[in-house]
């Protein structure tokens, strides 16, 4: 495998969990709900997926359990922010704090009693990357096909989410709820139900992102396996300007940066690692600057106008 293909392979692999979670968070934020619980939900997704596969030996069941856990946590967030109209930032942060702690707690208690640290350091079934004969040796294309099934699912999800948001009626309803819930409500769209639905859907995708870490990318459970990737997702949503099609570039940039910088180090280059680590964040700042100008020119892109605000029918 040539260097470019090998870097691209690992970049896509690293970017999968980020892309899944970013699309999930985009759908959530499009409905006007800011979910800062990404880090916590990813950790719980990673833990529940690994715990399930350890006991049941079934990858499919593991994915289903992770999705259910993600849905449950997101449901809690939706309930707190939509029905109870709690502050979205506070609710999201508490979900992250809870998820981080609870995942570590469970990780030390689930698993066989013979293992000192229970689930930590154990092995189980994993999702292995495919290697289709004939295709895998083609440069560049080889990187795209030598991936696991969750990555293939992500390939499908990106155009689907984009098509849904911009080309279908429910997508339009979703966007209108995030832009102007009052008007959407007046048009007969159920704002509360829409927000519930996409927050939960978002939670499912975020948890799948976490499951990808513990089932495929770094198989096994270790505490804080996400290492702050949930926060990168929050930045990626902004980077992609709430557009699923653009999420891919951000995820590849953030996911690939380590792959690239470790390889540059291993090949003995002179570019400092810290400089490379900084690049995606500079990218995000640049995108924000450009976006602000663009927004001033035309009202077409940018954050959903009602993001972070609760909706109450009587409010004016």
């Amino acid at each position, binding site marked *: 495998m040539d260097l470019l293909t*090998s870097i691209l392979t*690992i970049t896509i692999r*690293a970017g999968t969990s980020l892309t899944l979670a970013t699309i999930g968070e985009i759908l959530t934020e499009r409905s006007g709900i800011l979910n800062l619980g990404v880090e916590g939900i990813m950790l719980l997704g990673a833990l529940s997926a690994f715990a399930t596969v350890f006991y049941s030996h079934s990858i499919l069941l593991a994915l289903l359990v992770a999705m259910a856990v993600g849905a449950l946590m997101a449901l809690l967030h939706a309930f707190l922010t939509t029905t109870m109209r709690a502050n979205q930032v506070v609710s999201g942060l508490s979900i992250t704090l809870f998820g981080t702690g609870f995942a*570590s707690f469970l*990780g*030390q208690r689930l698993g066989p009693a013979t293992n*000192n*640290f*229970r689930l*930590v*350091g154990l092995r189980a079934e994993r999702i292995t990357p495919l290697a289709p004969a004939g295709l895998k040796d083609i440069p560049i294309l080889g990187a795209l096909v030598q991936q696991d099934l969750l990555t293939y699912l992500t390939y499908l999800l990106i155009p689907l989410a984009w098509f849904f948001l911009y080309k279908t009626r429910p997508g339009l309803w979703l966007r209108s709820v995030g832009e102007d819930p009052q008007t959407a409500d007046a048009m007969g769209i159920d704002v509360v139900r829409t927000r519930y639905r996409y927050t939960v859907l978002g939670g499912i995708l975020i948890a799948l992102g976490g499951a990808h*870490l513990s089932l495929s*990318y*770094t198989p*096994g459970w*270790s*505490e*804080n*396996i*996400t*290492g702050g*990737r949930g926060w990168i997702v929050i930045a990626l949503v902004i980077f992609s300007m709430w557009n699923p099609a653009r999420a891919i570039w951000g995820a590849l940039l953030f996911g690939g940066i*380590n*792959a690239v910088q*470790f*390889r540059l*180090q*291993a*090949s*003995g280059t002179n570019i*400092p*690692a*810290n400089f490379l*680590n900084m690049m995606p964040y500079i990218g995000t700042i640049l995108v924000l600057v450009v976006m602000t100008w663009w927004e001033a020119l035309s009202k077409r892109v940018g954050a959903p106008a009602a993001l972070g605000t609760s909706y109450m029918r009587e409010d004016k």
Partner: protein
Amino acid sequence: MRKTVLGLLAVLMMVSLVLPATAQARKPLKVAFVYIGPPGDLGWTYEHERGRLALQKYFGDKIETKYIENVPEGPDAERVIRQYAIQGYDVIFTTSFGYMDPTLAVAKDFPKVIFEHCSGYKTAPNMATYFGRIEEARYLTGIIAGRMTKSNKIGYVAAFPIPEVVRGINGFTLGVRSVNPRAQVQVVWTNTWYDPVKEREAAVALLDAGCDIIAQHQDTTEPQKAAQERGKFSIGYDSDMGKFVGDSVLASAVWNWETYYIETIRQVLDGTWKTHQYWGGLKDGIAKLSAISPKVPDAVKKEVETAQKKILGGWSIFTGPIKDQSGKVVYKAGEVIPDDKQLSMDWFVEGVVGKVQ
């Protein structure tokens, strides 16, 4: 009714006056540990936790130990350490380099509490430091790696470019080159002590670059697992990683804090504790070589034994001739790098590929 209540209160007050006095008589020594990661990292913190458990078992109800995990270096650490001091802990062990200044700050405010900081260099009348020459064990693992590599490229996943890590890389490389002068040690920095995903990514990058053995200075077993998945060997650090990963881990340089912790607490209980800077090595048992994997031939094991005897006999692994990366002799034959120069080491020996950034 009121009288009975008052009477009861009076009795309670008298009891409460007597109780603390009796409790004080056999009050156990309170010992706290502050950890940078979770004990379940199976590496650095795992070994400290093993030391704490051994300590508790040794002294039984004479002491009471407690730990707190995942404490970030910086302001959070100071808050946690101060909290322990306020709660009346008598001895506080802080087990990461970045806890040095926070520990010192709290030590100044609590002169009666004893502070023990691992891997730093600042002390106070009530604050001591302790660490070990793990590079002596690394030197021995280097001999194994030097003999077992086929590509003559050995990868090294390293956390931060600080003297502790640099010393380890140099000790390891000197071991490698003592038996295989053509082998090179390729270093990749991750800039984190604990991040399973990054540690694995760095190891994979090194494997892709043609390294066939992965050594590391990190807190988890991910680099070892990544090497194993590619069918390659690895060298463990912190704990006997072969136990968690398998015999693809040829040997590990391991910490053994138990003896030091027991000795320190004994001194505190005897009242003979004084501030110090402890820096033990293989001969003190604080740094050790783990059991060697069955994949290593007996001839190599013999070689390791010979070197180990030499070190136990007082020979320093940092004995010249030692060349730097440019090939220049920096320490002449027979010259030993003095301790202070070892403690501030910021350059690589010949055979290391990479930079101290």
